[in-house]
């Protein structure tokens, strides 16, 4: 059998699944305690893989960059008169009546979006080409702003990319990183522009993350291959960096033959994946982004979703998530309880591989003390256990209802991910009309799916 290593780099955890000389090895690292490169180095130094080992990597680097807003300081060129269009097209959060509805902060501030005097009509005919003098002026402006990455989105460029190509050529020759929107042939300007913007936004840091790992792989003569949205492998291709955001779901789809729905219950996220449905665009917080992706939906309950007291109904699951910095109370740092803390109080978190070091056994009393305040002046006063059970029960029910809305009765759902074994019995007891099956490889499924890609 081929020697293979799969690595999944998440937001806070890195997991590795290796099969070398017919022996299986699995490991999970907590990235708050060890860097990505040190974790991989540590694992490989023990494993000593032969140089012909296949090495596949799925990452959440793109999500990390966008969520933390740490991407490139970049400029976006659009057709003149439409500089505000990306912002105006961003969804406003006003589903319920709010005193001030809001839009999320964009990755490119409006001051960095420039209009270029050019126009192509709906049939693809060029009405106006870009003017070199205008580009020269923009170049001097970008130099002052110290900007080196540009995304270009012109109207109807998918019908005729000539104007985009002309402007791209000019700036590429001056040494800029340029990402064009016309590559996305089927999408309209809104999702096309965001795609080129995202390609540009994540490029620099993605490249840096990759470069940080390169010496480790060179040390062991390994050639890393990253997984993209089509579960294809790439080594270096900047237009696939953003698309790699969907690499994990794509490899899970391949691993669990395409006919099964997947409920992924990981340490960092709970997601539903529908391997049968490939979407042309991804609905992001900024609006649609043109990128082919396996349909996946973040569940309404998440592992580190904050639970807070609520005047109206005693407690609520907030939209905010704690993440793992500082992490759930069970890790001893945070003062805010979250869903994982509910599982921990119930004694369910002990069996999670590689988390033994992070869990502080004495945090149970802290969690209960903080929840005690929820019970004051309610019918749960003095009945803390009942309240904790009620919270956990509500979370499971919400999760199951969401799943029930996504999957038709009698369809097959495979439950996978590091928390699957623990949560499966509870879910199974609530959803009786589905064919629910526990994934036997659930604990290290992300790295395993990456490892087995193309096997």
């Amino acid at each position, binding site marked *: 059998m081929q020697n293979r290593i799969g690595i999944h780099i998440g937001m806070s955890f890195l997991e590795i699944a290796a099969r070398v000389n017919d022996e299986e090895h699995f490991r999970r690292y907590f990235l708050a305690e060890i860097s990505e490169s040190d974790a991989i180095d540590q694992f490989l130094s023990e494993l000593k893989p032969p140089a012909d080992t296949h090495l596949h990597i799925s990452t959440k680097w793109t999500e990390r960059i966008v969520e933390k807003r740490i991407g490139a300081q970049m400029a976006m060129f659009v057709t*003149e*008169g*439409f500089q505000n*269009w990306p912002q105006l097209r961003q*969804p406003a959060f*006003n589903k319920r009546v709010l005193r*001030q509805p809001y839009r999320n902060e964009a990755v490119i501030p409006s001051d960095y979006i420039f209009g270029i005097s050019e126009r192509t009509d709906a049939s693809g005919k060029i009405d106006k080409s870009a003017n070199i003098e205008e580009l020269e002026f923009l170049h001097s402006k970008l130099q002052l702003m110290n900007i080196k990455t540009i995304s270009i989105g012109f109207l109807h460029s998918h019908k005729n990319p000539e104007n985009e190509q002309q402007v791209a050529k000019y700036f590429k020759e001056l040494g800029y990183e340029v990402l064009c929107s016309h590559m996305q042939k089927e999408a309209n300007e809104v999702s096309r522009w965001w795609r080129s913007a995202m390609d540009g936004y994540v490029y620099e840091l993605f490249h840096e993350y990759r470069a940080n790992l390169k010496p480790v792989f060179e040390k062991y003569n390994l050639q890393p291959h990253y997984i993209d949205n089509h579960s294809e492998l790439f080594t270096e291709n900047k237009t696939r960096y953003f698309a790699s955001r969907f690499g994990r779901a794509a490899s899970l789809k391949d691993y669990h033959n395409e006919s099964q729905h997947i409920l992924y219950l990981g340490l960092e996220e709970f997601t539903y994946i529908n391997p049968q449905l490939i979407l042309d665009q991804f609905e992001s917080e900024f609006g649609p982004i043109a990128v082919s992706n396996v349909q996946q939906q973040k569940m309404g309950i998440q592992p580190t979703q904050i639970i807070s007291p609520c005047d*109206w*109904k005693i407690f609520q699951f907030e939209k905010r998530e704690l993440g793992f910095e500082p992490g759930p109370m069970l890790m001893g740092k945070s003062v805010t309880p979250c869903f994982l803390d509910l599982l921990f109080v119930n004694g369910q978190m002990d069996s999670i591989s590689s988390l033994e070091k992070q869990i502080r056994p004495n945090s149970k009393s802290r969690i209960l003390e903080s929840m005690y305040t929820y019970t004051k002046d309610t019918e749960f006063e003095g009945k803390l256990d009942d309240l904790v059970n009620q919270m956990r029960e509500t979370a499971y029910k919400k999760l199951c*209802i969401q799943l029930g809305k996504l999957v038709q009765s009698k369809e097959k759902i495979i439950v996978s991910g590091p928390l699957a074994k623990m949560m499966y019995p509870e879910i199974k007891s609530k959803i009786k009309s589905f064919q629910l099956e526990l994934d036997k490889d659930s604990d290290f499924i992300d790295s395993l799916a990456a490892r087995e890609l193309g096997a």
Partner: protein
Amino acid sequence: MKNQYFEYQDFFEEVFYNCPSVILFHHSGITLHMEQERITDLGTLPKACYEIPKYFPIDDGSMILLNDPYSGGGILSNFTLLLGVNLNKDYKGKSAEFLLGIKFIVRPSLVFADNLENEGLKVPPTPIFDKKNGKNQALIEAICSHPSSPGDLKYHLEKAIDEISSIKEKLEKSISIWQIPMDQKSLEKYIHHSNERMIDFLTKIRLAKAKYKEQWITGESIGLSLEKQEKKLFFEFFEVSNSEKYHLTQAAVFGACFASVLNLLETKIPINTGTMDCIELKIPKDCFLNSTYPSPVYLGFTEASGLIANFTAKVVAKLNKEFQSAEGNVGTCTLDVNFEKSNLHFFDRLQSGLGATAQNDGVSAVDKWSHDILRASIEEIEKRFPLHIRSTSIRPGSGGNGTHQGGNGMIRSYVFKEDAKIKWYSAMTGHSPDGFMGGSSGLGPQFLLVRENEKKRLDLMGEMHVQAGDRLDILTAGGGGFGED
């Protein structure tokens, strides 16, 4: 474990998450849960559920279609579909135990008419489906082929039938997962609890009474006396004039008043009879807030409902100063274009800026009172219609100055590539959105027609023929600023 009263809120929110305007109604007259896209739905959907079964027994599986605003509908392009649902096996009543209702929009268009009958096809409550005979295809065909029927009604109706059936299926599935009792007694307990919680919330409103009167530039006058009573907020409208343009039903006004209260609350509260019962309305007869058939409703429901919600929010804010804000969400602009030669119809609605508050700047170009619908792609518009969009941008400087800046409006510039008949409208109560506490006013809306290099400012409402090559610039209003700059 015993089900808790508060579980119902979590349950209903989960079931109806991401649904369009939807209602679940118990036959005893209780609204159990609602999600709304437009504020008028808050009043009209419960009214439809309450009134219609009085005339039509709705069995389990039966569907009723309507758009008549005087029977619980809204504007005539906004249809309501009701479905009878039994959720308890042991229920033995003649008509369905629950009603599930949704709203769906068919081909929005700007309508100026002096009579409801001239606003389009009015569909009174009409049974279109029953369990025994299935779909009443002949009746559906007759409605859809009526000369005033919007061309794509049949398509949207089919889609709505699928959607409401799918919501019903999800509701049933969710009940079995959550194991939540749906018997009348348990549901009444939940509603009672919601009512108690809402009363608690109202105690946070400090002052007891507020009274305010406004005269709008369009000629309407409106007065509101608001009183915080022990268990409710009592809205008593007075000195309300009639209006040539605006006509609302009591149900629509209720929606606007309820929305202005929701606007105060930081917590998401359930919309049900328990919470709605804390709002009581008294509206004089024979005024534009209490219209009767055959008054036209289009401008009343689409434009004036937002103006009423702004007005009532202003009066509600008088009870608690921290809720005060500068004026905004006025001067939204609507354009309707009929390309007669190519038989194409184009509709566009551009949002205005919101007023600033003591805590925040106003948001630019967003609708506060109806759920934001993502604007159509420029490329799609130019591909489908003989239109060239020259620009779409934020209208700089249109938000008033202040400690907190008013939100900006937006500008869109259209060049017609074919002769067309256009209609446009923008609703304002004053000349410009007022600033507050020393903040300056936002800029009012403008419609500018450019023909052969000559620019002409149009009224805020009108219709005309445009020629190929003409340009129309629409500038929506900004919001007022808050506090001295």
